[in-house]
């Protein structure tokens, strides 16, 4: 099993720079929930996001179509981001295992960690990140989160990469 106490910055950056499509389990339609914030941010960064929320299936969340389950997705995804309580994990793992094309990455949100489940997913060749938020990690690595005073714990003599428009940094082109 990989070391879930310490993910290297390069590992996280590589994942975020290589992934293109993300299914977000537990994406909320409530505009002040953390999952909604993360969804809008990841969409703004150019990811193809697929909200998974059985109660919102057929509706748009943050402007994109929502699906009831991973089995309903119209195409394979690179990453599954789990924004649910730990109790929901076993069922979600079954759903992932039943996907016709397994995702390369399974990402468990801040506060969720289960090493047994991680081991099970890793045994099938998936890379697992636990107890992290992709929005925070993206913000750390592209540099934007520093604008609100957050300690990124990253130092660099390279410049942040600008996206078109005002005040947007990107990880595009940062994949090693």
């Amino acid at each position: 099993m990989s070391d879930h106490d310490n993910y290297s910055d390069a590992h996280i950056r590589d994942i975020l720079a290589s992934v293109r499509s993300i299914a977000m389990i537990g994406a909320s339609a409530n505009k002040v929930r953390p999952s909604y914030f993360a969804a809008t941010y990841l969409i703004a960064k150019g990811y193809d996001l697929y909200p998974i929320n059985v109660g919102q299936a057929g509706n748009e969340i943050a402007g994109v179509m929502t699906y009831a389950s991973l089995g309903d997705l119209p195409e394979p995804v690179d990453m599954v981001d789990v924004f649910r309580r730990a109790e929901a994990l076993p069922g979600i793992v079954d759903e992932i295992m039943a996907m016709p094309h397994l995702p390369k990455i399974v990402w468990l949100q801040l506060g969720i960690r289960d090493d047994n489940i991680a081991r099970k997913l890793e045994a099938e060749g998936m890379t697992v990140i636990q107890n992290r938020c992709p929005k925070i990690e993206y913000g750390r690595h592209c540099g934007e989160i520093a604008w609100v005073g957050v300690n990124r714990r990253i130092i660099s003599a390279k410049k942040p990469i600008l996206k078109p428009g005002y005040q947007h940094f990107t990880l595009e082109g940062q994949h090693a």
Partner: protein
Amino acid sequence: MSNEPGFDTLAIHAGAQPDPATGARITPIYQTASFVFDDVDHAAALFGLQAFGNIYTRITNPTTAVLEERVAALEGGTAALAVASGHAAQLIVMHALMQPGDEFIASRKLYGGSINQFGQSFKSFDWHVKWAEGTAASDFEAQITPKTKAIFIESLANPGGVVMDINGIAEVARKHHVPLIVDNTMATPYLCRPIEHGADIVVESLTKFLAGHGNSMGGIIVDGGTFDWGKDNRYPVLTQPRPEYNDIVLAETFGNFAFAIACRVLGLRDLGPAISPFNAFQIITGIETLALRMQRHCDNALKVAEYLEGHDKVEWVSYAGLQSDEHNKLQKQYMPKGAGGVFTFGVKGGYEAGVSLVSNVQIFSHLANIGDTRSLVIHPASTTHRQLDDDQQKAAGAGADVIRVSIGIEDADDLIADLAQALKQL
């Protein structure tokens, strides 16, 4: 980088990458009040705290952000908020923690300005300080009531050079589930990192040793990321929906840097004491040499203190770096690299002798500040602490005979010679 960089590397690099638009290597001074939005959706995302970015310099500014990340890194915190002064930092911290009628416990060994702010001005907000008269953890625990919302100490207390037992007081704070706030102005993170000793929040006047040159006002709040705000719902600013942000719950949305965000998007936004980007730039530049300066301040201060300790016109010297000092043991535990650049001593002859000494020094500047590259001197009883009565002055370590010096980074021999000639005139 996978290994945590060392202190000196962080002091130079943390927060500061080359400018993305121009390649400028030194952080530019973004001297602008406002920032352009892409479109109305981008503006809405920024106002709703959904996107990271700048709206208005009262709330965020890219130059100030470099300062914030740098100090957060040096203190080992999750995030920071820079404001106009150390006093503004204290006001904003308490604004986030306190409701009308609440209490907090503060050490009596504090900078005189803080004693005023807590004891007088905060009464207008119906926030009530309870003083811990001694320095032992039990002195703090004795003041705990159901209304207590925080404990406040200075790591190295101004002006008496008292080293506080941060671990012991942090244990009391943890036991009663209130955050421990440590003012680390006099020690700086070079000498002491309070979060490593159990502090939850660090505040500092940046004007002093961090900036180092006495040319810019600033203050900072560092979020340790250690406190569980949701545990018992006693901090509604963090755990209740905020109507001004569509009912967002800050603790849930911003996790272990929620306190710093709360201070920014509520306290700083609504009370308004923003730091100027120019001052942030000056302070960033100063911090690059913090380790070099701070060690020299400590080395010089020890030499001067040892000289004064042997002088027949000096009654006593209170410097934790001296072997003879009652705080020497705690100093070696909490700040082994040195006891800082500020200390007090008593001149024989009381008030008049104190006034004479500060009038006759030639290199030392007679002024109300500490932490400058140049040496500074003040007679607290006639200046910074004159608003306190005799008992309060004594309790704060600022009695009639007390002289406070802030030892600069000049040649120690010149400082000793200057004090020698001034003492000779007593």
